[in-house]
């Protein structure tokens, strides 16, 4: 029996910073047999990507391997010279990076970049041969018109196409090991699925050993035989994928499995008061099981609440809404095409679609950040098209947004107190003292300590910033909150926490949510009704259960099928 292809033993990676050495990876060990596949799973900052970069010795900045071994066919890469590593990269280890937008050099043509990889690894020589091999590589990666597009530049390719180019380059020299670092997380789900399927069949044909890096437990379990869960630079659990998913042993893994929206099956129910649930988390850090945020909760009284809501007038009515953008030179572009829906008070409707589906434009028109070309938006009995500036100012207090990017949604130069109080000062509500009280109340509602009022956004994590954004949105006691990809940029655990906070706030304040997302998995745990958008139109609208259990449209079925890990049975 030969040695395993890759053996990582007690790998340590450290970064030199101004304050000293920071250990990013601590004592990571694993073994990868020839032809097998392994996925390293973890949240951001867990050290999963750093581990991958350490294997091919391409750590960024001051990062370096400070201990342990990386044995490829028994040869220790941690001790390899620069020249030896250059020999190994491409030839023995291929690499598919994360973001297709930033991983191709914008100033060179696609053909140039593929050909240079082929030439560097001695796969072919001579102009014609190299070019032929480049076309072959790209075609294998799924770019069928490769021969015509060799001279084009990266910015002329879509994200999915670029990712195919990167996969092609990674496999150009037929390496024994392919490291794929979040290869599809920047892509739409349906594209993601197609590309992963393709990658899987390619590597199976070539017999390539696969090392996946991903944050998505469902995706990892679906694509790899073996899982390695990392937390704070260490391996907390590893083993066969199915076994880990069905029977997670380490409390951290249990948390992850419980919080993964792709694996959850029911809407979150707000149980008990928020503060009670939150304080349980804050104080009881050691009892891990009790801390797990369980999205797989059972539906109970939700149906009754929905029935009650149906008898009241709806909070939002959208009728035949259309938005046409005039594009110079190339005519009109219809971003939103004849869209109609209603949202009952106190309920959540999700608007789901991939990039370019027009879902965010709908949100902008609702918030009157963008004027509708035609159609009607009625909020609380007022038609947005006909309200005056004065009335609109009043209406704004009834409808507030929370946006996607936690790093962009707060003014970095304003302290938290002033940020939350801005709606109050703008609408001249209360005195300075009463506003301060209200800010404290809002901080309590989003479970953040009151001491934060004098702090600044850059001191907070992404999830905490989203809480502040929610607090700001709630300051004017709105009836409607528009959540535009509000949890999409967060790690799963934090995401689950914010989702539960939203559910609890809804139960407590009878809020109406319009939840805009590309992630159908999240929809299941937050929404009552779903509208699926494609190319500006709503293609399917129904209750969440109907959409998930009995989708009518092919597009909806594609979206559902693309949720990673959807077909994995959980033991629990």
């Amino acid at each position, binding site marked *: *029996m030969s040695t395993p292809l890759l053996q990582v033993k007690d790998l340590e990676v450290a970064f030199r910073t101004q304050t000293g050495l920071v250990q990013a990876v601590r004592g990571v060990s694993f073994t990868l047999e020839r032809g097998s596949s392994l996925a390293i799973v973890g949240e951001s900052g867990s050290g999963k990507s750093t581990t991958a970069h350490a294997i091919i010795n391409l750590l960024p900045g001051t990062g370096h391997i400070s201990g342990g071994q990386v044995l490829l066919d028994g040869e220790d890469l941690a001790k390899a010279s620069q020249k030896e590593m250059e020999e190994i990269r491409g030839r023995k280890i291929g690499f598919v990076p994360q973001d297709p937008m930033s991983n191709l050099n914008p100033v060179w043509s696609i053909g140039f970049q593929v050909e240079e990889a082929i030439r560097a690894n001695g796969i072919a020589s001579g102009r014609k041969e190299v070019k032929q091999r480049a076309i072959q590589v790209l075609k294998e990666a799924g770019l069928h018109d490769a021969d015509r597009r060799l001279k084009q530049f990266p910015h002329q390719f879509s994200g999915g196409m670029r990712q195919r180019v990167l996969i092609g380059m990674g496999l150009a020299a037929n390496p024994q090991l392919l490291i794929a670092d979040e290869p599809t997380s920047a892509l739409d789900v349906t594209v993601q699925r197609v590309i992963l399927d393709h990658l899987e069949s390619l590597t199976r044909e070539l017999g390539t050993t696969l090392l996946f890096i991903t944050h998505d437990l469902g995706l990892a379990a679906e694509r790899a035989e073996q899982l390695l869960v990392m*937390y704070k630079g*260490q391996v907390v659990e590893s083993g066969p994928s199915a076994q880990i998913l069905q029977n997670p042993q380490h409390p951290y893994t249990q948390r992850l499995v419980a919080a993964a929206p792709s694996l959850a099956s029911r809407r979150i129910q707000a149980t008990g008061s928020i503060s009670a649930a939150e304080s349980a988390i*804050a104080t009881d*850090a050691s009892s891990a099981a009790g801390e797990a945020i369980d999205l797989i909760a059972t539906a109970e009284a939700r149906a009754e609440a929905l029935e009650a809501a149906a008898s009241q007038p709806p909070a939002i009515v959208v009728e035949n809404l259309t938005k046409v953008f005039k594009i110079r030179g190339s005519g009109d572009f219809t971003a939103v095409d004849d869209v109609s829906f209603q949202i009952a008070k106190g309920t959540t409707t999700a608007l789901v679609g991939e990039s370019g589906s027009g879902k965010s434009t709908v949100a902008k028109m609702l918030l009157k950040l963008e004027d509708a070309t035609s159609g009607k938006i009625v909020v609380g009995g007022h038609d947005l098209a006909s309200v005056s500036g004065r009335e609109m100012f009043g209406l704004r207090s009834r409808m507030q947004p929370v946006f996607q990017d936690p790093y962009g949604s707060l003014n970095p*130069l304003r302290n938290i107190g002033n940020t939350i109080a801005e*709606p109050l000062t703008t609408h001249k509500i209360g005195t300075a003292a009463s506003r301060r009280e209200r800010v404290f109340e809002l901080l309590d509602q989003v479970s953040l300590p009151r001491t934060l009022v004098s702090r*600044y956004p850059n001191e907070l994590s992404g999830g*905490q910033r989203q809480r502040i954004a929610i607090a700001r949105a709630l300051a*004017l006691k709105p009836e409607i909150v528009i959540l535009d990809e509000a949890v999409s940029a967060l790690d799963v655990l934090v995401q689950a926490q914010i989702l539960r906070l939203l559910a609890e706030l809804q139960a407590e304040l009878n809020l109406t949510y319009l939840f805009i997302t590309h992630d159908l998995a999240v929809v299941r745990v937050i929404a009552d009704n779903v509208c699926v958008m494609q190319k500006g139109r709503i293609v399917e609208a129904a209750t969440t259960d109907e959409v998930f259990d009995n989708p009518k449209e092919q597009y909806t079925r594609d979206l559902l099928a693309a949720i990673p890990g959807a077909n994995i049975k959980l033991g629990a």
Partner: protein
Amino acid sequence: MPDTSSSKPRIEHYVAPLEETPLEAIDSVKAEGKPSNLWIDAWHDLRRRPMFWISSALILLIVFVALFPGLFTNESPSEGCLLANSNGAPAPGHPLGFTRQGCDVFARIVYGASTSLSVGIIVTILVFTLGVLFGAFAGYYGGWVDGVLSRLGDIFFSIPYILAAVVIMSVLANYRNVWVISLAIGIFAWPATARVLRSEILRVKNSDFVTAATAIGVSRFKIMWAHVVPNSIAPVIVIATISLAGAIVAEASLSFLGVGLPSSIMSWGNDIAQAQTTLRTAPQVLIYPSIALSLTVFSFIMLGEVIRDALDPKARAQR
């Protein structure tokens, strides 16, 4: 993990002991210590850099000299000059010797400081004001406002500002003073600042916090000054510091060319121009004001550089 030595590799299920990686509460708040934002952090960074203190000390010294020249020399820079001392060597009370007119070189340098500094400050205020107004409105309002303002900026930018000042000062031969020369330099020097601010504003104005403010009902004008401009101004501060140095050089260059300040106003540029005729015989008369000028310029450029390092996270990472 044990070695997988059996013929059919079996994947072990490994679970790390809990003590090794104690779990932390999800997303726990860690906000101890002092509040921090861009400006607070920049100040903490500046405080630790010797270059900041050196340049600040030099600038303070120059400001002091400019304000109270009498404290530094007892000699008059222009009166009581004896031609007998023409290009004379250093003598007691005259540490740097004499100019061609027999005036005290050190006194002339001391009294010249206020001219350089005044021009530098007036030009910088002018450039900053015009640059911020043009850049902010063009970047924030976009559309035709941007079209008009940016084209206007392009036109002013198309004439190198020292050349423009040469023309203006040539025409205004009878009106030469510190204010006129500052205006002549500043009126063509602002487009660079406006461009930088405009591109920063284009970056900031699409931030979600701006959209959030709009959704709250804050007026467009207020959003511009309360949210957008403060977040775009950092690079402009850096440019302002460096443009102060540029203005001092510009004044000296114009005076050197004879279209700057009249000889009745003390200016290092004038002194250098006058000393060039005797460069071969008395280089020191030229060298000393040159050193004063270069040192002043150096102080402001060095300050600009450390401020840039402190304010721009990218520059900070490049140290």
